[in-house]
């Protein structure tokens, strides 16, 4: 079914980038990071090769291609792939390149088809990737073994709670191992909430910024909400001050993943903010009792699956009226688009069994806040663009400009939650930057190592005394 290809060994890391990686490691120990990693063409090229082509990355949701022949065009970083359900119902990820000359064979964002036909010379493939015909095949290709010339499948594709992840490196460990203890929290959220479906089609837009800036923001930058998003406080759509903005726990499950979720006390029934009639359908779904208990107490928040899949479980309102905020769930992919741009993909998901009315309300809340026109997201774009601009300046490079990731640790403002029922390192509140540093530690693993980086759980990057 389609063809398989072997991935070649990586080229050795260029000396200049190896030196930069040493600097990053040393800086991280002091809670700092060289600005250069956020805007450098060589770093970007190597990230594509070493990080994005070896990590498990998000592709799409099963509800986007429910029927045989359904397909959507997707990208692994900057490389195009067709995410398709074949005639037998099997989900596949096929490199969007004709085996003859490499012409792109899929130019629509989505559709339904039994075959993909190359516009150049007419090589035709079944939707499972098999090469089934070429014009004048008998005359000019004779006995060519078609089974060797199918569309090339992504080396690995796995499903978790309806979410499909792919990996372009055959030597990569299974998705479970890449996720490590992050899987516990994906089970606790997506497993608990149960069947979701994507509403409509993803928002897509291109903004100035580097994917790492946006990944760290949506994972764990609770600190910015109080100021950058202060317009929401002024409108009365967010509470003013107090401990509201640091109410989340930062959970570091290892391997560079991160979770910033808020939990209420032991007997609370919060269910990620979903109303009772919707949450009535949520369930254990194989969770252990402690995990199910955490899920019931969880308000949600933000999370990031390394490297670039952001998850939001939030409750917000699209109006100034007295309507209660509505719960929504979004999956968001920060796709690198060169060193200083991102193509953002944003999917809103709703519980499959909920009413049409709730689905629309939930979508509206998500669209009004986190989408190209979202009243939160609009302002984020201002910060991200200029961070990347700073990182690309000559002066920043000449003075070795370092960004500061020291919040919390040095003054002992953050404590470790000792009796946390789940895995990972957990902080007492969200005004701290452990998760950021963990992301860059994992980034280093992938940038430096030609062998597949081993998994780790929470070897905290401790900030040294100054």
């Amino acid at each position, binding site marked *: 079914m389609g063809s398989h290809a072997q991935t070649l060994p990586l080229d050795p890391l260029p000396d200049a980038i190896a030196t930069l990686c040493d600097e990053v490691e040393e800086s991280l120990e002091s809670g700092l990071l060289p600005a250069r990693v956020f805007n450098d063409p060589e770093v970007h090229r190597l990230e594509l090769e070493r990080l994005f082509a070896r990590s498990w990355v998000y592709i799409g949701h099963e509800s986007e291609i429910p029927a045989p022949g359904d397909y959507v065009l997707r990208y692994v970083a900057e490389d195009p792939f067709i995410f398709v359900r074949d005639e037998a119902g099997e989900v596949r990820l096929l490199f969007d390149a004709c085996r003859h000359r490499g012409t792109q064979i899929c130019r629509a964002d*989505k559709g339904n088809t039994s075959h993909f036909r190359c516009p150049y010379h007419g090589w035709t493939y079944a939707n499972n990737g098999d090469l089934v015909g070429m014009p004048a095949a008998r005359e000019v290709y004779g006995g060519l073994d078609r089974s060797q010339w199918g569309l090339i499948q992504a080396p690995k594709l796995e499903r978790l709670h309806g979410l499909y992840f792919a990996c372009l490196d055959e030597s990569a460990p299974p998705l479970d191992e890449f996720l490590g203890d992050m899987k516990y929290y994906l089970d606790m959220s997506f497993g608990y909430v149960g069947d979701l479906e994507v509403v409509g*089609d993803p928002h897509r837009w*291109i903004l100035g910024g580097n994917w790492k800036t946006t990944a760290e923001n949506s994972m764990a930058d609770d600190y910015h909400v109080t100021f950058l998003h*202060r317009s*929401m406080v002024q*409108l009365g759509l967010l509470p003013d001050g107090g401990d509201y903005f640091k109410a989340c726990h930062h959970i570091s499950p290892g391997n560079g993943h991160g979770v910033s979720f808020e939990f209420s006390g032991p007997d609370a029934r919060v269910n990620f903010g979903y109303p009772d009639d919707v949450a009535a359908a949520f369930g254990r779904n194989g969770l252990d009792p402690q995990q199910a208990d955490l899920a019931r107490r969880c308000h949600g928040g933000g999370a990031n699956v390394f490297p670039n899949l952001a998850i939001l479980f939030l409750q917000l309102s699209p109006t*100034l009226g007295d309507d209660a905020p509505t719960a929504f769930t979004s999956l968001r992919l920060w796709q690198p688009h060169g060193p200083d741009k991102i193509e953002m993909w944003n999917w809103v998901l709703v519980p499959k069994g909920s009413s049409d009315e709730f689905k629309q309300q939930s979508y509206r809340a998500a669209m009004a806040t986190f*989408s190209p026109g979202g*009243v939160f997201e609009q*302002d984020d774009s201002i910060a991200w663009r200029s961070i990347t601009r700073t990182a690309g300046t000559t002066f920043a490079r000449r003075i070795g400009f370092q960004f500061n990731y020291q919040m919390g640790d040095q003054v002992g403002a953050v404590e470790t939650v000792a009796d946390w029922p789940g895995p990972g390192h957990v902080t007492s509140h969200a005004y701290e930057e452990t998760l950021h540093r963990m992301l860059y530690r994992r980034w280093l693993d992938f940038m430096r190592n030609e062998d597949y980086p081993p998994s780790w759980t929470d070897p905290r990057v401790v900030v040294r005394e100054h």
Partner: protein
Amino acid sequence: MTDPDPADFLVREAEHLDNNELREWLEGCVTEDISYQIPIRITRERGAATDTSDGGWLMNEDWHSLHMRIERLYTAYAWAEDPASRTRRFVTNFRLNPTETEGVVEIKSNILLFQGRYDTAGHFLAGERHDLLRLVDGAWRLAHRRVLLDHTTLDIPALSVLL
């Protein structure tokens, strides 16, 4: 007495938006039951029935959600529009259709919006508007707007202005 010119209304409405007179726009140009929609566009094969998303929106607003968006811009922290972008709306190719209901017209138009921001070159958005106008006290107001953008992936950092 003849009805005022619907195309003239759209030109004057655009002036409010270009001038960032958004409270005036909400107060004077739209009906209380306005529906304002920008569906997501998707690239489909030529034979496909539609190339707008079924259920996916960039904006799907009523008066209350437009009010929230507009009031936000008058706070001191709406960074996306402070400094404000310079916008110019070119509204052309008017196609007027009467409806069954007295005092209601359908008008299609093309819109080209230039948005200049900071020291960047700025960008354009192009699309077609399908508007429904209703006479209120002898003046046209916008009751429904559906903007079909000619973009799938938007090459803009944020959709921070109205079309």
